[in-house]
């Protein structure tokens, strides 16, 4: 089993892990020949939020080499906080003591423990060379366990809509947090998106009217079958789960939300341009079934 790559785009990698880290202590990373998959699927997650992401190798790494007996795939469980720490010292910032020149990530075994080693080569302001090395403990997963990982099955979404900037959404949802545990998300095919809460003491309803509905492939054969564009589709989700998803605002450029009424909400967070996306983080937030809402 061999694995070695040089991280070219440290800031993006850092931001991706940053948005994952708030979600789950431990995440699963699967490296294949072409992609890096980050998976958070713990049942322990509050509200049952899951992340299945897919990031193209070339958007983060150069000199990427991978070899294994399991079709050249390596899957590991890793502590997201430790990984974030390693990436933090790899990223150059105004406050860090050195300028990062190269970051090598490789699989190693130290004292019988599998680790992911980050070797950071940097240059101080006076031109001296610095080497910082982080070993992050990992557990390599057996192919049988990997095969058991499966993405949640969802019906064909009722609706696709482009979300407004996540930063703005987060401000609003943050204000709602002390007032309610459940958030209702409604949208139609006419660019309307509504976030609402409804409790005994307050009803708050925020509406955007100029969102975009991306075109989907499956165009109904008969135009008369086409659903009413003004029909609203609703999904109730845990407000805290939705806030956790909104942590991905640090990395997002475009986000498409899909509503599967009474089932779940799927959110595609694109890293980089949609046309030339370096990857996509997919969040699944299960619906809360509440008759009283």
């Amino acid at each position, binding site marked *: 089993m061999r694995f070695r790559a040089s991280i070219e785009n440290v800031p993006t990698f850092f931001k991706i892990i940053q948005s994952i880290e708030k979600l789950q202590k431990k995440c699963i990373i699967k490296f294949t020949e072409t992609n890096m998959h980050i998976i958070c699927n713990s049942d322990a997650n509050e509200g049952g939020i899951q992340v299945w992401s897919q990031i193209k190798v070339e958007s983060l790494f150069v000199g990427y080499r991978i070899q294994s007996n399991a079709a050249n795939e390596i899957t590991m469980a890793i502590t997201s906080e430790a990984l974030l720490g390693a990436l933090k010292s790899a990223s150059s910032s105004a406050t860090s003591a050195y300028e990062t020149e190269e970051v090598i990530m490789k699989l190693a075994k130290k004292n019988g423990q599998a680790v992911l080693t980050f070797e950071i080569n940097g240059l101080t302001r006076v031109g001296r060379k610095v080497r910082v090395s982080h070993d992050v403990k990992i557990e390599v997963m057996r192919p049988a366990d990997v095969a058991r990982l499966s993405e949640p099955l969802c019906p064909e979404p009722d609706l696709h809509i482009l979300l407004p900037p996540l930063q*703005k959404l987060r401000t*609003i949802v943050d*204000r*709602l947090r002390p007032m309610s545990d459940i958030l209702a998300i409604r949208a139609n095919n006419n660019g309307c998106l509504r976030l609402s809460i409804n409790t005994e*003491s307050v009803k708050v309803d925020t*509406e955007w009217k100029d969102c975009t509905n991306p075109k989907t492939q499956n165009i109904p054969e008969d135009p008369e079958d086409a659903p009413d564009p003004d029909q609203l589709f609703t999904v109730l989700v845990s407000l805290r789960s939705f806030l956790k998803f909104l942590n991905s605002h640090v990395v997002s450029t475009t986000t498409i939300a899909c509503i599967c009424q009474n089932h779940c909400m799927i959110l595609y967070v694109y890293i980089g341009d949609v046309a030339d996306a370096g990857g996509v983080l997919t969040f699944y937030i299960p619906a809360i079934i509440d008759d009283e809402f």
Partner: protein
Amino acid sequence: MSQPIEDEELPPVLKASVHDVRYFAALLRGVNFINRATITVTERGLTITVEEARTLLGTAFIFSDVFDEYCYRSENPPVVASQDSQDSEIVDNTAFEVPLNTLIECLNIFGTAGSTSANVTTSKFKKWKKAGDDSDNDDDGGRGRSAGGRGIDSYFGGGSEKRTGMRLTYAGAGYPLTLLLAEDATGPTTTCEITTFDPEPHLELDFDNSKMVLKIILKSSWLRDALSELDPSFDKLTFIGNPPPDAEATTSRQKQRPRDNEKPMLRIQAAGTFGSTEMDYPNDRDVLETFECTRSVRFSYRFAHISRALRALQSSTKTSLRIDEEGLLSLQFLMPSPKPKGAGGTSTDAFIEFRCLALDDEF
């Protein structure tokens, strides 16, 4: 005298709108120490009253000219007798209770209702901001901070920053308080319906000016600096006032013993489990703009109650402190309006008042 027949055709009891909610939100935050607040609507404006432990009463007086539009329709039957008209002006109001925290959170839904202090204090006064106060604005980092440095912009209504505009309606007893909020025409709009409750009677603490024994007017920063120095572990705060000595006597005595003034004019004493502290104010017009004291006064209050006033103090410019012979304390804070004085003409600054009963153990 044509009365509308159908209920739906009646205009709402209260309709008000404002293009920038920051001043309104700042006034509400000044009394936001108990969640349940009574809002009393009259022709002249709104009063927001909160009460704690049957001892402390906080009231924000928000006059109608704080709003761009303000419309009150009385629900009460019109008064027939003309002699009572003066009375009825006082009585004619509509009151309801709302969860104050929720109202403030709703106003700040876009994160542009701002934190209190910096937005309403004029640049003449020192900015005083605790780290915790900014928490509302942490998310939009730079925006909140630059709001602090605005100063002159707020006077010209300029600046590219977004403000939250509000339209508020209250249809009458049993109806929710409805807020319509938006930043600009292209952005999202938020509708909030806040459940209202029948008002509970409040503590009545009337301040009788004829029984007043101490009256001080001072710049709010002098009191604010003193109170914010005090550690929260203190549990008792005592105001001590003594009549100013005769003018000649003062000058001669101060020449002899300037430091050793045994009877301070105004002393604030705080005591707690871990110690006590004393602060004296000098007999100086620059500090105490007005000082009237008829006899030696010494009254104690629960520090936790007095410190409730800090938030209002932070955004106010002037404070009036009065104590009557039974120890009832009245603190009035002038909250400067961000509106330009000249253009509005008769713009009245809103104010916040705290009334607090003295502790019994000392007299």
